[in-house]
């Protein structure tokens, strides 16, 4: 059962709510394999992609998902909008609502932006990434992909490797995975491990071989060099040497370890090319699954709002 008009993060969802989204997504996956890849579930609804940060994958994925549900889609990128003239987020949101639209998909560089927007508009808000906080649909598609392969999440050992400190993908994954019973390990250079991360029920290690050893899956995060303000980041080659996922390192891992990456890839920085393109990689399946997950999310929030307004 789903009753929320917004999807802001996995932190405030129950295990049952997460499982309901995943089950709904499973049903939506079949739609994309049809010759006519469209169902009329959101016919007459308008989805606005409001992106304050550059994004190709997530924005296109939401757009494809909305269109496969027969919704109309408007893309607003802030470089070419009145945000440039100083309009606040709340004003922008209220104006979008005044256009009688139904769902705002927001990506913002400030943590909490989606929550603030949701408090000021009546239409649905879906968080497509807010600062270092959450990226719920990315985590949902990661978990969906894990569940598809392993059949269950409970008891799975998942390692998240990379820039944990700046990663909303890591945070959403940790919340989602631990709620569903997975054992999560985070691995990064000491400088990129946030203080207090143990309180999220994860194991912390600075040793990449330790992180890979027993893992069923490893989620390799992108090194977000654009977020490096204070020189905490290692140099690219240094990082690859100490933390890069290579064939050599995987020799000590489980043979069928699943390799995941949220994209975009920095080949030769966090992951070697032959691993990214190798047999264990599900990186492109993640992209495909993202559509089913986002269709489910858009459908569920829209339906919840319709129901609440009746």
């Amino acid at each position, binding site marked *: 059962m789903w009753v929320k008009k917004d999807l802001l993060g996995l932190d405030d969802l129950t295990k049952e709510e997460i499982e309901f989204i995943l*089950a*709904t997504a499973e049903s939506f996956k079949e739609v994309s394999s*049809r*010759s*006519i890849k469209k*169902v009329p*579930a959101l016919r007459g609804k308008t989805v606005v992609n409001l992106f304050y940060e550059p994004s190709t994958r997530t924005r296109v994925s939401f757009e494809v998902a909305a269109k496969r549900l027969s919704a109309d889609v408007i893309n607003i990128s802030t470089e070419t909008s009145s945000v440039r003239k100083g309009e606040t987020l709340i004003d922008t949101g209220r104006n979008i609502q005044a256009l009688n639209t139904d769902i705002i998909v927001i990506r913002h560089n400030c943590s909490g932006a989606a929550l603030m927007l949701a408090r000021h508009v009546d239409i649905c808000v879906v968080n497509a990434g807010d600062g270092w906080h959450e990226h719920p649909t990315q985590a949902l598609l990661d978990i969906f992909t894990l569940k598809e392969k392993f059949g269950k999440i409970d008891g799975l050992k998942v390692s998240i490797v990379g820039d944990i400190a700046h990663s909303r993908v890591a945070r959403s994954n940790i919340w989602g995975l631990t709620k569903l019973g997975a054992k999560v390990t985070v691995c990064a250079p000491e400088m990129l491990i946030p203080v207090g991360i143990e309180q999220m029920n994860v194991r912390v290690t600075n040793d990449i071989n330790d992180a890979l050893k027993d893992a069923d899956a490893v989620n390799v995060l992108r090194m977000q060099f654009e977020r490096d303000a204070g020189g905490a980041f290692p140099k690219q080659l240094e990082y690859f040497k100490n933390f890069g996922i290579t064939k050599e390192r995987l020799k000590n891992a489980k043979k069928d370890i699943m390799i995941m990456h949220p994209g975009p890839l920095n080949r030769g920085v966090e992951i070697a090319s032959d691993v990214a393109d190798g047999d264990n990689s599900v990186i492109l399946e993640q992209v495909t699954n993202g559509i089913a997950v986002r269709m489910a999310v858009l*459908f569920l929030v829209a339906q919840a709002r319709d129901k609440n307004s009746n």
Partner: protein
Amino acid sequence: MAQPKAVGFFVLDKETLARALTRMAHEILEKNKGAGDLCIVGIRKRGVYIAARLAGYIKKIEGAEIPVGTLDVTLYRDDLGLAEFQPAVHKTEINFDITDKNIILVDDVLFTGRTIRAALDALIDLGRPKTIQLAVLIDRGHRELPIRPDYVGKNIPTSQKQSVAVRLEESDGVDEVLIVEKAE
């Protein structure tokens, strides 16, 4: 449909239900001159079980294995957001090409016709069948759309105050159809 307590009267029991389905299987074969190009698609939830049973009878009669699929019409409903309960979306599983096939669309109870309208849209999004024919176990009347069945297990005139409870072994552990008075 909620599961009402068995206060109502029986319309079909195990034997009469089996006979009705056997007759429908014969009618389907007669009208389509055999089982060639025939496919059966059941509407979730109980239409699926009836579809599988019809395919079983057809196999018994004709010896032919015909493809059976499952249709979830949730995304095509005209009352999404209006319904008091929120229907969960389930999978559509039709693993064969329906183009140029004769499709037998199967549901348990035909009432307003709105589910069938949604099912027709859903089917046509999957391809262009030669024909779509409708088979229902119970036709209880009260149509709101111009839809009529091709094969009927039993016609049961009902009032709007009544509901029809179809129970099948696959989902409910027993084969029976009852008419139940709705609570006021």
